[in-house]
């Protein structure tokens, strides 16, 4: 596909998602109280959008992932939250 064809197919969808992201961050800013690790992880991930590197989707997924390699002692529950809390939250 040409770049123009990609833009024809996906620009409006991506534009909509971009504005949603901005509105989400505005909403978080307007809210009260302390944010948790997810906001920091989100802001770090967003930085990959404009770093000019290829594989942005992969790099964002990596930035949100648990980088450790050893199994944990016991499962704390069943769910996942979408971002790794890091060592400070453990």
């Amino acid at each position, binding site marked *: 596909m040409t770049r123009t064809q990609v833009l024809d*197919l996906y620009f409006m969808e991506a534009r909509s998602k971009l504005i949603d992201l901005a509105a989400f961050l505005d909403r978080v800013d307007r809210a009260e109280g302390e944010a948790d690790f997810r906001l920091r992880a989100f802001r770090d991930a967003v930085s990959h959008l404009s770093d000019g590197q290829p594989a942005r989707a992969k790099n964002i997924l990596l930035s949100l992932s648990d980088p450790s390699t050893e199994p944990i002692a016991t499962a704390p529950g069943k769910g996942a939250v979408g971002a790794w809390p890091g060592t400070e939250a453990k």
Partner: protein
Amino acid sequence: MRYIEPHGHMVSRVTDDYQDMAMAGCACICEPAFWAGFDRRSPEGFYDYFCQLTEHEPKRAAKFGVPHYCWLCINPKESEDVRLARDVVALIPQFIDRPNVLGIGEIGLNKNSRNELQVLEMHVDLAARLDQLILVHTPHLEDKLKGTRLILDVLKNDSRIKPERCIIDHVEEHTIELVLNSGFWAGMTLYPESKCTPARAIDMLDNFGTERIWMNSACDWGVSVPLAVPRTGLEMRRRGWLAETIDKVVFQNPARFMGQCPKFKIP
């Protein structure tokens, strides 16, 4: 468009979904054993579930002209209780020869705990002893990368396991290379919010090719779209993919993988 739904939890879906899938060209459905959304309290609960997957659900699917296959296991979300898991794994051999059972799955990890790993190893051993295909669930979100690495280590460390007889499901951009480069099949799950969208799945096909890869809806009791595979086929068409290549991804590839089980009949 003919297609195969290689991963759908139809016990959680309504009959309208069967009708819609049949009308969209679904040639057969394959249903891995799954977490019910709550923990079953006894092996007997799993016995009943395995009866549902091997007796009742094929009949329900047949009403819409859709062949139904399944995979058996205790899902990773219930693997923290090793004693229960051991009892459930012991039930599987009495079901494994039933005509719609394709293999062991979806096994794997959820939170990457030691107990989950132990139960994964039990299933892998069972599959190796019974010479069964394996369908693997990789963890969600932040746990996926680590879990995929741990799962690949377990499979690669067992010399009885042939990578071409295992599919590692729910890959995303950060795990697909690990899976394909190790010789395993990769599954892409098309979800509206997590896992990957149709556009991203097609991007991965652009980047990594169409060998040893399938797409599925993994439709279940959560947010999911039973028609995600044909919708992605349509998206591929919009992006200029040839009809033959679309057919390879949505029909021929899953047929080739599951055709390694002699019970699977090409629809």
